[in-house]
């Protein structure tokens, strides 16, 4: 929908990086660089992940046992630390996703006036 110039990255909202990482991992284990790349591509290059923050977030999620990490070998035979979603992480993701939906809907209702996307008066 938006016409995007190359430099038009949006910094990721505080607290949402965790959610993005978890979502990325739904599709299977991935290493840090892969996660960053996926977030960038999936957001159509809007979100540009700060790598320092990324690895800190990964560590935080690991500490909370929402994801687990293991050293492995990639398809092109490089050693990498692979992250995968834990059951707890999956649950957390579901919960946070619905929370996020409610939030964005409410934001849209206010910002977009009556022309809120999908459904009105709840």
């Amino acid at each position, binding site marked *: 929908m938006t016409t995007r110039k190359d430099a038009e990255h949006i910094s990721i909202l505080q607290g949402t990086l965790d959610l993005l990482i978890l979502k990325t991992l739904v599709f299977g284990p991935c290493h*840090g660089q892969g996660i960053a790349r996926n977030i960038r591509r999936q957001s159509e290059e809007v979100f540009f992940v700060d790598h*320092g923050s990324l*690895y800190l977030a990964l*560590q935080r999620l690991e500490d909370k046992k929402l994801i687990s990490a293991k050293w492995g070998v990639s398809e*092109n035979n490089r050693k*990498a*630390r692979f992250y995968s979603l834990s059951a707890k992480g999956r649950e957390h993701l579901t919960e946070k996703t619905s929370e996020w939906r409610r939030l964005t809907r409410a934001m849209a209702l206010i910002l977009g006036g009556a022309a809120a996307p999908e459904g009105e008066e709840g």
Partner: protein
Amino acid sequence: MFRRKRSAKDFTDEVQAHLQFEADELEAEGLTQQEAYRRARAAFGSVAAAEERFRLRGRVQWFDNLGRDFKFALRQLARNPSFAAVAIFVLTLGIGAAMAIFAFADAALLEPLPYADPNRLMSVNESSASTPRWPLSYPDFVDWQRMNKSFSSLAAYSGTGFLLRTASGLESIQAERVSGGFFRTLGVEPIMGRDFAPDENRLGGPNVVLLSYRTWLNRFEARRAAVGSTVDLDGKAFAVIGVLPPSFSFGPAGNVEFWTPINSLSFHEHSRDFYSFWGIGRLRDGVSLQTARAEMNSIADVLQRQYGTRSFNLAASVVPLSEVIVGDVRPSLMALLGGALLLLLIACVNVGSLVLARSESRRREIAVRAALGAPRARLVQQFVTEGLLLAVLGCLGGLLATVGFIRLLGALVPKDMSAKMPFLEGVHQNLHTCALAIGICVLAAILIAATPILRLSQQRGRDSLVEGDRGAVSRFWRRMGSNLVVVELAIAVVLLASGGLLARSLYSLLHVRLGFDVRPLATVQISLAAGAGVGTQYSEILRRVQQLPGVQAAGLTSRLPVQCDCNTDSIKVIGKPELVGENEVDERHVSPGYLPAIAASLVRGRFFTDADDSSKQGVAIINASLARKYFPNRDPIGQRYTNTEGGHLSTWEVVGEIEDVHEGQLDVPAAPAEYFPLQPTIERGFTLVVRTAQNPAAILPSITATLRQIGDGIAVSNEITMEDAIDSTQAAVLHRFSAWLIGGFAAAALILSVVGLYGVIAYSVRQRRREIGVRIALGAQRGAIYALVLTQAGWLIGAGLAIGLFGSFSAARLLRNLLFGVSTRDPLTLSGVSALLAIVALIAAFLPARRAASVDPAEVLRAE
């Protein structure tokens, strides 16, 4: 569960892997390997920064939060300065009092005596049925020393006095005669010079002295040459052979300036039944107290059989030396410590309930923060920070207050007494008190922080958002707050009851029938130099003093009343069997004018006259106790009894009987006492007692001046009024000390608990305004509203009183050693205390009740 923390190396590896992937991708897009790697690095940003952030992760956040919480807590306190001030003041008071008392208790009871291996030091004496510690006679001491196997060393000491010749005339000073090995037994060595040598300890040895450190400083200007110089004591030259260390003091001896060996004995001291020496001993390794006691008892028994001194019925007493030094003050200190801890508890509870009340009014804030996603741990951390901040501020205040309190308490102890309690010099902050301070602060912080945390877990944040300030009273706080107030009230009752009992004891003590007129008396201690004309000096002293304006009468006595049942004499009534172990009576030598001057009342017979002197047959005046005990149902006048004055049997005829003059300490009953005419040729030290028309303190300087005019052979000391002399006796001081302090604690506790009660009731009324408004609107009378509030208060007060009175019984039992002339369950005290607390508490509850009754229903309901 516990996982090894991820290493920094592992993290670096991961970053390297990342860069590798990035470079791989760029290379696939056609860049050279080198360029790809460079771009990958550039895209990543600072690797070092990422690694640094990894290393600091967690820590930074925690510090951030702590700093934020701390600032927030400070802001909270600043926003509510009265809350902060009250809380900090209450903590300061509680902690300061507890710490100061503990510092004293620590110095007296916990700190070891300043001697080598003090646990092995024993006080070794004789003991009679009525007096557990009875002095030794010199021959007994020598035999005990020779015969015992329990002690590695046994030594004796005996107080004495000398007239020291100084540049400004004669001065009466305190000295102690000690047997050889006294200092070795204690493990004390002179810092200069040497200890007594064996030949100096033998009878007939040379005149030598050791100086106390203070004496060396004050009288010898701390000159090294002091050792080797001579001093003039009682007109004889004594060689100074050494100086004792500054830390050395020996409580039982008091404020001693000079120490001399026992190398000459007085006439009496040679006899086996003249008891005037005290013993100390060091237990041999491996010998227990019981073993030593048993051995000394059997030795005492053997000697009594051998020398026929069984009439005294003495056993041996072996008790730890520390018992002798601190035993008298232990009950007082324990009581004070208990009182201080109760006060501290009440202070913490009070601050806890203050915090609780405030957390109650912050419920919405907490709920909002919880709803905004603050995890519980963060909320808890916030409260802990606030509690810590309050506790730390309170502790700082407490520490400052401690210094002041210690100084204040120290100043309350009279000088004479503090010399007997050298441990008081050691009252200061040390490891024990620091440990206690930290303990108290941690405890206070926990108490203060725990109350709102408990509250936090009791309730889901969400409920309070819905409930808001309105609706039902928060049941939790009412229950919790009420319980806390009951605890406070109960503690206040315990302290008030203890304070009341102690105050009554003090009152009884100060109103003991003394048998003489205290108010108008001034006293001065006089020592005469040996030599010719001593006899005439007595009459000269009395004549000159009686001529002073304002003096009504004057007399001399060998010992002031109300000091001590010592200087006793063993008597036997002619024609009656000896009472085994009960022949001791107080013996006083008085001038003819003494008994009339102090206004002793004559029961029958007569006072002494100038005609009664030692040249005639002995005459005696006895007191009523002696008459009752030894001459029951008989007129004692004209009766005769004997004693052994200096080993010779003497006979005395009773010429008068007086009402008991209280010779011993206030807290012991009056003992039998006999009065003999003063023997001017023998007695060289005595006390002048002067009856004045005006304030006795005012005449003391002119008495001293007059005495000095008589001649330079007179030393004057201890100028004091009789009233002050009695007030500074140990019994009076200890009772006054505990009564005032516990009374002070009780007053503080009363105020704190009543303020606490006010807080609870006022809060509850504020919360119930709507309910009360509805009640009034529905026709409830004002009286009913008063009843509603006061009933709630009544229950709390009643519960506090009931628990408190129950606790008072136990407290009074613990205090019974300190009570005098009052029962532990004195109904007057207990009912008075209960009434006081109930009235003050009801007044505190009445204020919010009035506010409740004046609620305007229209206003309250409209506000909805």
